[in-house]
């Protein structure tokens, strides 16, 4: 089985699905000739031609709006937004239109499309190339939100997303793009949406993370183990609809939870997770839930390691929750 980084795994998923399903088209800024600024669509233009790999003018609302139209016609568009920070000109099309088509037409129309966008910090990108806007989309009914942490999951989740009948926001942690390699099968395979994965078992405290912060959570779990604390680490993989069963099962075992995310704390997805846990597992909790997140400031440039919820901030939170 070949080793791939996340960029290669995503490329492999797109290539295989474009071969097997001619409804799939890729569109966006710089996705054609040059294969995307992160090279996720590299080679596809040459292989599938300009009708299926479309370099668009610079207009996110146009990209997503026309992808919606294509999806309504029966295609399976996979539009790319160059950075999640630039998704906002398309926000209206995503949250008011794509998200609502099925509901507002009594199921007559739907928008099966996958909006791919790199997210997150760690590349010295300042606030316009580092944000994590997942909670804005989770909050708007009708959208699915996915965020893989590694190449293997990225391929299986992207294929499942393209085959899903609802619009999916597929957020790719750009810090992981080339930093992590795993074995990735050449052939297509699916990782079902809404299935989280327990990536490390433990009995004292549960850590919930996704994307690039999963690795920080794992490093913290290693650190905590040296203090005799066994942390269970859950990679959500699909953020919404979230796999509540896996979360609750873990909380029932550990009674303690730390949620980690890059986005700002207030109204971040952690707030929803902690509420769900409080509502559904209150009597199992042995300690107040803890959120380790980005601060409620814009994402800074120079101080990004001070902003991000990295292991140096997660480890003490784990110990604190475990020893409460």
């Amino acid at each position: 089985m070949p080793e791939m980084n996340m960029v290669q795994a995503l490329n492999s998923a797109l290539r295989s699905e474009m071969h097997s399903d001619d409804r799939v088209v890729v569109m966006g800024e710089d996705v054609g000739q040059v294969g995307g600024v992160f090279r996720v669509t590299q080679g596809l233009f040459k292989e599938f031609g300009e009708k299926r790999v479309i370099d668009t003018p610079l207009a996110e609302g146009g990209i997503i709006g026309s992808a919606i139209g294509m999806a309504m016609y029966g295609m399976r568009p996979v539009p790319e937004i160059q950075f999640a920070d630039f998704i906002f000109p398309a926000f209206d099309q995503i949250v008011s239109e794509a998200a609502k088509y099925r509901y507002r037409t009594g199921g007559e129309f739907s928008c099966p499309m996958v909006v791919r966008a790199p997210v997150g910090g760690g590349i010295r990108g300042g606030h316009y190339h580092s944000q994590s806007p997942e909670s804005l989309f989770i909050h708007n009914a009708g959208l699915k939100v996915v965020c893989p942490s590694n190449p293997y999951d990225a391929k299986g989740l992207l294929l499942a997303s393209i085959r899903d009948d609802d619009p999916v926001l597929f957020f790719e942690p750009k810090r992981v793009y080339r930093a992590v390699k795993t074995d990735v099968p050449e052939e297509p395979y699916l990782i079902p949406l809404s299935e989280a994965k327990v990536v490390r078992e433990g009995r004292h405290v549960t850590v919930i993370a996704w994307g690039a912060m999963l690795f920080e959570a794992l490093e913290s779990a290693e650190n905590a183990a040296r203090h005799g604390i066994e942390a269970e680490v859950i990679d959500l993989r699909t953020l919404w609809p979230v796999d509540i069963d896996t979360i609750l099962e873990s909380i029932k075992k550990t009674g303690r939870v730390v949620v980690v995310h890059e986005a700002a704390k207030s109204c971040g997805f952690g707030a929803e997770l902690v509420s769900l846990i409080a509502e559904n597992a209150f009597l199992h909790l042995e300690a107040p839930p803890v959120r380790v997140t980005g601060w409620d400031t814009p994402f800074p440039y120079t101080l990004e390691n001070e902003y991000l919820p990295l292991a140096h901030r997660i480890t003490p939170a784990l110990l604190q929750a475990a020893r409460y």
Partner: protein
Amino acid sequence: MGFHIGSAGEEAAIVASAAAMREVDWIFPCYREFGALLWRGMPLQGYIDNMYGNSNDSCRGRQMPDHYSGKPYRFASVSSPIGTQLPQAVGFSWAAKLKDEKIAVAVYLGEGATSSADFHTAMNFAGVFQTPTVFLIRNNGWAISVPASHQTAAKSFADKGAAYGVPAVRVDGNDALAVYKTVKAAAEEAAAGEGSKLIEMLTYRMSGHSTSDDPRAYRSEQEVEAWQQKDPIVRLRKYLESNQAWSEKDESDCVEQLRTELKACIKKAEESERPSIASMFEDVYREKPWHLKEQQRQAEQGPRHKANH
């Protein structure tokens, strides 16, 4: 210094246009306009500090390199999201008009930005309300890897003015004197109450989109070489030399002096402190609310990242 978004090839379009604006006029940049900012009086050290994001940077290390601003120089702020500055510049110039202040506002954009919804909105408002806005399109041929021909089916970007009732012209953007003259006339008319103008400056982006881009992946050497022949700085220099206004010696003295100054600025910037943790929590609001005070306390008292002990 982690990143740079250069202006090689576009120096005339940027600096000669800025020079054509009066001191009372304002400039809203895209992101290749640091030459305009320096022209306006930002000290080189200020620009370099911004590139380093250190504690002396007027943006307090919060922005990526080349995302400067300079209120003392009547220069607004660089924002990455393409096109956002355009309606803002319209509103800014509109406010001046409402207050009967006779200034013009120059706003820069790349030709790629003409595809953005904000461009349409800005042009439409500028036309309807006859605002004193001068739209300066740097048509440098490329929007990262996408050629100008892929942004519009119109014959030129200047053509777009007609649809909004905004008078438009095209100018050789590598001819500093032509740029100066065209922009000066447009700005004066705008300030005098004649409404907005659209100027398409034909130029070329000589290097990659930014230091993260390798343009060899999408454009030919021949195309780049052809534009090298039209280098706007060489052209202006030749013109000045033929008029005895500049010499070989002036040139080498100038380059030498700038090199020395630049080195000193870089050294100083490198030796400067990083911004404080406290600074991260400032300017979110005018006054710090309880939750930011609490988070600041956590950040200051909590464990430090290993890289910054």
